[in-house]
């Protein structure tokens, strides 16, 4: 699943490890989600969106 997590994370000056710590997953999982190689659960999608001060639409909705 394509997403804009990496852009939002960089905008917020967070590293993958810092974001991972905020949402209680591993850095590897964040990397896989950013590359579109793992589809997170809705629960994790919401956690990431909250951690990056974005909405689900901002991060995941495809135009």
């Amino acid at each position, binding site marked *: 699943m394509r997403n804009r997590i990496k852009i939002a994370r960089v905008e917020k000056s967070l590293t993958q490890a810092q974001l991972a710590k905020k949402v209680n*997953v*591993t850095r590897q*999982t964040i990397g896989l989600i950013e590359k579109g190689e793992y589809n*997170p*659960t809705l629960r994790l999608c919401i956690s990431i969106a909250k951690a990056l001060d974005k909405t689900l639409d901002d991060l995941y909705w495809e135009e």
Partner: protein
Amino acid sequence: MEKSWLSKVLPNDEYKEKRILYFIAESAVILAILLLIFALINNYSLYGNSTTGTTALLSLGFLIAYPLIRHTLSGIGYTEVTNEKRYHKEIKAIFNRSLTTLVLILITHTLMAGIPSNVTEIFDLIGPAFFISLVVFMISYISLKKSFKKNRELLDD
């Protein structure tokens, strides 16, 4: 989602958790195949008398029975049964399926071992066939009952 007791020993990270669950499931399938091969080699036939072969078959039985029982009790077998009419229709279908199982076992056994010639042989044939059919019926019935209850709880009206 309701988690399993296994989740207590799995990582909190959902990606790792999912991958490890796949690894454990794969190992169970490979183990089942190896146990079957081992049992066949040990016994030459499924009805041999080798103790190690029997142990392998019992282990294989556990590997099959455990997920079957968990599946039956979890109420995920009949996801579309939400009203009484459909429930009773499914009971009839389960009964017919069990009856078909009984008839098929009787026919297969008769074709392989011949027509029973005395009362003991008749009981030796009907007893296990009836037992297997009863197990098939009970598993499906419990699964249906659990599913129906779960489906009713999840209805939005």
